[in-house]
């Protein structure tokens, strides 16, 4: 997903048993260690109100949002049939799949194409409606009606083709691969092909069950009823949100592996101003800052509030996408030139040092990562390549987020780089709440030639990166995540081949090496993008908060587990 936006992953893979693969995959990437289950104890740590400062997000509807800022909230609000463990990624396996609304992990057939779930008994949404088995099909159909960016997750379900062809006419009944029995509480999902990461796909918000009374349109005021320990009582885009305890949530009875939650209410103030959000926590008015710490004051904050700040390495990559469908970056030498001319160490400085330079697309925490450096900084060589490409003097439209200081500065830096190469650059600074929607829409004019982008894993497997972001087979007209319209047939075929491996082969040394080769090929042979850093994220808590309760899950800090001193 985007650090400020998320994305769906379409992963088709052969899996005899998805469970076996997940059990081995959970320790294969991300930053998790160990196999602890469930969240921390909340006994005696409840308190009335948690006040947080938040960055703007795209949507607060689980069917539409693809941003970490929303998913961090959703981890305590919207539950899928399965969930990721709400444990610290530093001390536990935060990507481990555990039963959510389902009573247990599913059974599946030998081929891994037929999954059967049984819902827990007595589940209710925050509006009092019972959680029904048929709600899963409704959720999937609703995603199609919404033209959700998560549609690709469901592409492997039998009978989904009609919905893919005409999303507006998608109904639960038309998805023949999903059958359910509300009385028995059973759900059966049939896949066209085995898919090793299918359970991961069921753990993300696009698959989180919503009541069948939920409107088939963007629902944000308030957002859909919740199945988790909290529900979103109100939301004003880019301004505020309010979470309250779900009155129908009963963890102890239901035994779900999600914490009850310590705060009774969570009040969120939204602002893209990193300086302001840090100031609010610094002054004690708010208790947690979801925004990145302002790089302008990082040294001072670290010195004065070091005990209240945490730095987290994340499975993320920041990169410039290059539009390969039109000049100048449909020219390989032009793309190579931008790679040579972009100094990652400069961009690390613009991020206040909260980053590690890279030229890989995959993050270094992955077993499939093999460090490459095909384009050491060399401005002269870059200029020569531009000359050879014949694109010098071309007009370039560069897009970046204009209300986030780090992205804005990075955009202006890259603009300077392109101008040094001889391009005529116009920079377009877009509000972060709409940025990815705009660059992901092929109808946007002027068409972005190059743009700021970032990616934070949905789950720790390379297809979550290559298949979503750089596979020509996943390009869509809107909500497109392959912003550069990267489409190299041999790479597409390789990705499909690796995705289709049986689970027993998904993490072998050879497979890992082949994924590393894909990473290498995309950069070295095709210069498909300009990756430049793996990001760190920060957590800044006020002096009232007990830092031991700051549990950093796969969806960032878990608000439900925060506690006071």
């Amino acid at each position, binding site marked *: 997903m985007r650090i400020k936006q998320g994305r769906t992953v379409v992963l088709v893979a052969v899996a005899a048993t998805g469970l076996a693969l997940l059990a081995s995959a959970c320790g294969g990437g991300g930053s998790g260690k160990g196999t602890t289950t469930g969240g921390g104890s909340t006994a005696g740590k409840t308190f009335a109100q948690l006040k947080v400062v938040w960055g703007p997000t795209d949507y607060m509807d689980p069917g539409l949002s693809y941003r970490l800022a929303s998913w961090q909230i959703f981890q305590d609000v919207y539950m899928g049939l399965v969930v990721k463990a709400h444990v610290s990624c530093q001390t536990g396996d935060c990507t481990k799949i555990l039963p959510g609304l389902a009573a247990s992990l599913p059974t599946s057939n030998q081929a891994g194409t037929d999954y059967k779930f049984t819902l827990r008994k007595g589940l209710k949404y925050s509006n009092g409606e019972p959680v029904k088995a048929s709600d899963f099909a409704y959720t999937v159909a609703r995603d199609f009606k919404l033209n959700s960016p998560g549609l690709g997750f469901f592409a492997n379900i039998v009978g989904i083709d009609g919905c893919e062809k005409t999303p507006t006419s998608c109904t639960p009944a038309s998805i023949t691969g999903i059958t359910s029995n509300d009385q028995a509480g059973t759900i059966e999902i049939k896949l066209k092909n085995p898919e090793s990461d299918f359970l991961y796909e069921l753990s993300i918000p696009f698959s989180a069950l919503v009541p069948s009374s939920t409107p088939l349109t963007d629902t944000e005021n308030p957002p859909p009823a919740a199945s988790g320990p909290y529900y979103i009582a109100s939301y004003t885009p880019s301004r505020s949100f309010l979470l309250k305890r779900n009155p129908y949530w009963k963890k102890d009875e239901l035994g779900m592996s999600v914490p009850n939650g310590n705060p009774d209410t969570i009040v969120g103030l939204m602002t893209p101003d990193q*300086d302001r959000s840090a100031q609010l926590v610094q002054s004690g008015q708010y208790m947690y800052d979801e925004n990145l710490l302002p*790089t302008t004051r990082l040294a001072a904050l670290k010195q004065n509030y070091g005990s209240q700040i945490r730095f987290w390495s994340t499975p993320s990559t920041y990169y410039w996408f290059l539009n390969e469908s039109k000049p100048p970056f449909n020219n390989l030498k032009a793309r190579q030139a931008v790679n040579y001319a972009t100094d990652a160490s400069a961009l690390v400085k613009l991020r*206040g040092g909260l980053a590690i330079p890279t030229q890989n697309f995959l993050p270094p925490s992955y077993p499939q990562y093999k460090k490459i450096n095909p384009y050491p900084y060399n401005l002269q060589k870059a200029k020569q390549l531009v000359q050879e490409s014949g694109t010098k003097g071309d007009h370039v439209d560069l897009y970046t987020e204009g209300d986030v200081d780090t992205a804005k500065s990075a955009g202006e*830096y890259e603009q300077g780089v392109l*101008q040094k190469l001889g391009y005529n650059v116009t920079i377009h*600074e877009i509000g972060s709440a709409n940025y990815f929607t705009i660059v992901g829409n092929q109808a946007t004019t002027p068409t972005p030639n190059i743009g700021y982008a970032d990616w934070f894993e949905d789950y720790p497997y390379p297809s979550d990166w290559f298949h979503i972001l750089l596979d020509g087979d996943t390009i869509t007209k809107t909500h497109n995540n392959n912003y550069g319209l990267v489409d190299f047939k041999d790479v597409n075929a390789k990705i499909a081949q690796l995705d289709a491996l049986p689970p027993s082969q998904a993490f072998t040394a050879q497979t890992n090496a082949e994924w590393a080769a894909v990473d290498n090929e995309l950069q070295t042979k095709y210069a498909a993008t300009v990756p430049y850093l793996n990001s760190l994220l920060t957590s800044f808590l006020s002096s009232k908060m007990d830092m031991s309760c700051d549990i950093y899950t796969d969806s960032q800090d878990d608000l439900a587990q925060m506690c006071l001193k």
Partner: protein
Amino acid sequence: MVAGQEDFTLDTAADLAGRERDGNEVRGRSPWALAWRRLRRNYVALASLGVFLLVVVCCLLAPVYANHVAHRGPNDTNLTGSIEVNGKSVPVISNGGATVLPDGTVVVVPAGQPIGPQWGAAGGQYVLGADQLGRDLAVRLLYGGRNSLRIGLTAAAISTIISVLLALLAAYFGGAVDWILSRVFDLIWAFPVILLGIALGTALSINGFHHAGINLAAGDLWIPTAVIAFVFIPYIARPLRGQVLALREKEFVEAATAQGAGPIRIMLTELLPNVASTVLVLFTLIVANAILTEVGLSFLGAGVQPPNASWGTLISDGQAWLSTDPWFSILPGIFIAVTVLSLNIFGDGLRDALDPRAKVRIEH
């Protein structure tokens, strides 16, 4: 004949008295000479003009400063470079970064702090320090001034020329012409200047302007110039129209008509000279307003586009640094204040000199 020549002022009386005393022949002085005499005695206005001209000269010399003192252009980034300060090599932007230890612990050394004002310690480089991209702040301040002044002055000039033409047409012809033009003025006047400027500036900064044979790229400085010129038209045209309406009924206009002078000749030779002093004063005041409007639009992202500098963009860029490097925003603010204040004081002095009884104001 120029209206008002028969007006008797104390200056004229003193002059007459002096000449009679001396026995010299009395010579008439033109209104312009009298105005210059009055202005010459207004030391505050002259000093303000001097300050404004000093700012203009400094900004005009920006390329000289950039090439020969700072050795750096206004848009030259320098994130990874270093300079010699008192014999020591200092990074322009502080170094740092992050390391992930084998146990997962993250060690961060904050980076990205720009170098502060060096004054003369770095041989002319970064006299006022660097911004977050390693650009020389002093160079950007001067180039920003060039852009702000250029846009302000040009926009004011264009606006004045168009306003004079429209005001003359509206007031001389009257009737339907006057009605249509007056409604156009009212329509533009109805929108707050900044809001209208933002709307037009933002729309044109996305794709530029490519119509009627005019091709302006998205970041072209002519775009904010044209936008500002457009929004200030009624602020000059309306008061001028009123003056011309009054003058149109004077006998000298009637006499010119009787002599067979056509409309254009009457407008240019009879009416225009009589409103010239008002035009001049309005122009001066509009320049100040145009500069302020440009600063406001650029601050909001609807004026000068990055990486080009303007005083407004410099203040905007400096917002994130207010707590650590407040001079990023304060310095351009001082330049703006000094420039606009000096223009306004000079404009007041000019108004007093040209027509002490005039009540020319820019009404918002």
